[in-house]
């Protein structure tokens, strides 16, 4: 089943994109810049309000036409085809970037303000404060929300089969149709997804334990 590998790649690449957008979005939402705030607010509203499949279709069909008519208008590039993989990974990444934005924003807010002020008082610059004070704690606060998002994200990759990407769903469907055993093949696909989510669940739990080591102990004490 080469489709499983496509699904895993799709999920991981879209995860990278969504993390980038999530950090960027959280930073924009918490910045003092009015324009950045409004842009980020608009982004999360649209991306969380419109179903992902609608956006995937829009990007795959509409994005291609827009991109090519821009190319023709400016004369900068010739006909380009956006692949199903790029459209799928890009759209899912951007959509879940919206969810990640909210998760990260909540996690950053949860860090006591005094700690950041203490960092300033110690003479750290903004980058050092982010790396030394915000990041290690943000990861811990964000993990539960992140885990949820990631599990939903893996399942969303199934939708890319609708635009014809040969992922595990598409391959399973085609194989099932030609052998007239759709139930058997779709059930196999179901089990593959179940394995993927189960494995991620284990990894996330391990991460959770790792990042909240000192905290759990102090709770018991």
């Amino acid at each position: 089943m080469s489709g499983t590998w496509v699904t895993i790649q799709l999920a991981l690449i879209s995860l990278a994109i969504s993390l980038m957008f999530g950090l960027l979005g959280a930073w924009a939402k918490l910045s003092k810049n009015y324009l950045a705030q409004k842009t980020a607010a608009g982004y999360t509203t649209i991306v969380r309000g419109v179903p992902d499949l609608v956006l995937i279709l829009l990007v795959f069909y509409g994005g291609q036409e827009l991109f090519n008519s821009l190319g023709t208008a400016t004369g900068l590039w010739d006909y380009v085809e956006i692949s199903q993989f790029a459209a799928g990974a890009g759209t899912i990444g951007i959509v879940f970037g919206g969810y990640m934005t909210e998760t990260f924003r909540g996690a950053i807010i949860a860090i006591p303000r005094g700690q950041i002020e203490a960092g300033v008082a110690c003479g750290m610059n903004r980058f050092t404060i982010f790396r030394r004070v915000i990041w290690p704690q943000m990861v811990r606060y964000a993990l539960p929300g992140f885990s949820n998002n990631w599990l939903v994200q893996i399942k969303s990759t199934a939708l890319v089969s609708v635009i014809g990407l040969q992922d595990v769903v598409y391959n399973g469907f085609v194989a099932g149709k030609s052998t007239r055993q759709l139930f058997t093949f779709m059930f196999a696909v179901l089990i593959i997804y179940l394995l993927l989510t189960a494995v991620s669940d284990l990894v996330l739990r391990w991460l959770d334990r790792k990042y909240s080591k000192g905290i759990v102990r102090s709770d018991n004490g």
Partner: protein
Amino acid sequence: MGESVIAFLETWSPIDIVLIAQNFDRFLWGALVTLQLTVISLVVGGLLSIPLAIIRSGNNPFLNAPVWAFTYLFRGTPLLVQTYLIYYGLGQFEWIRQTVVWEPILSQAWWCALIAFSLNTAAYTTELLRGSIITTSKGEVEAAKACGLGKWMRFRRIVLPSAFRRALPAYSNEVIFMLHGSVVASTITIQDLLGVGRWLNGRYYLAYEGFITAAVMYLIIVLLVSRGFRLWEKHWLKHLYPLDAVEAKPKKGLASFRV
């Protein structure tokens, strides 16, 4: 006047607004199908989830395990695959096609979508409700026991009303999730909101119009739903808010000193 507006739009609008307006009744029908599927499966799934959540929050292993397996299976796999499995998969078995429910129900896309959606939302709602049932404060349950309420009376009068309320914010997410999930219906030939958008694009060979219209309408529905839930929460969770948020009067003096 009207004609000149149309002519203006036809020349200058980047997307074909006139065509959208001409087919707007179809989009409204599509929205109706989407809402119908979502609401019915939420009701069915919600009703299913109440007994399942009570089982899941108890500690009878023989009842607990199958319910856990059900929620794990449905929460761990994509709705698209579940829907395909029911709509395309069940036809593989000759004996299912022989049964009386095949012709009127299991061979119909609408019913299959409804079954898949209901089971899916039932699984999510079960876990959600379980979470709020087991976090009911112990004191309330003990007080009910002290008053001599039996097990079912306790659930009916004390635990469930309070658990429902506390599950409300998470449930609003589930409702929106289900609304988003209902687009899967368009992949098994149902003319829901997205189905109409795909139809329009296919028929007139367009790239944006159908999807953009569908996207805007989904956005409107989602915003209305989340606003509705916020009002609902304000009403049903009033007792859980801090007092000054209810009175909405900023307190002067020491109280307004922020640490």
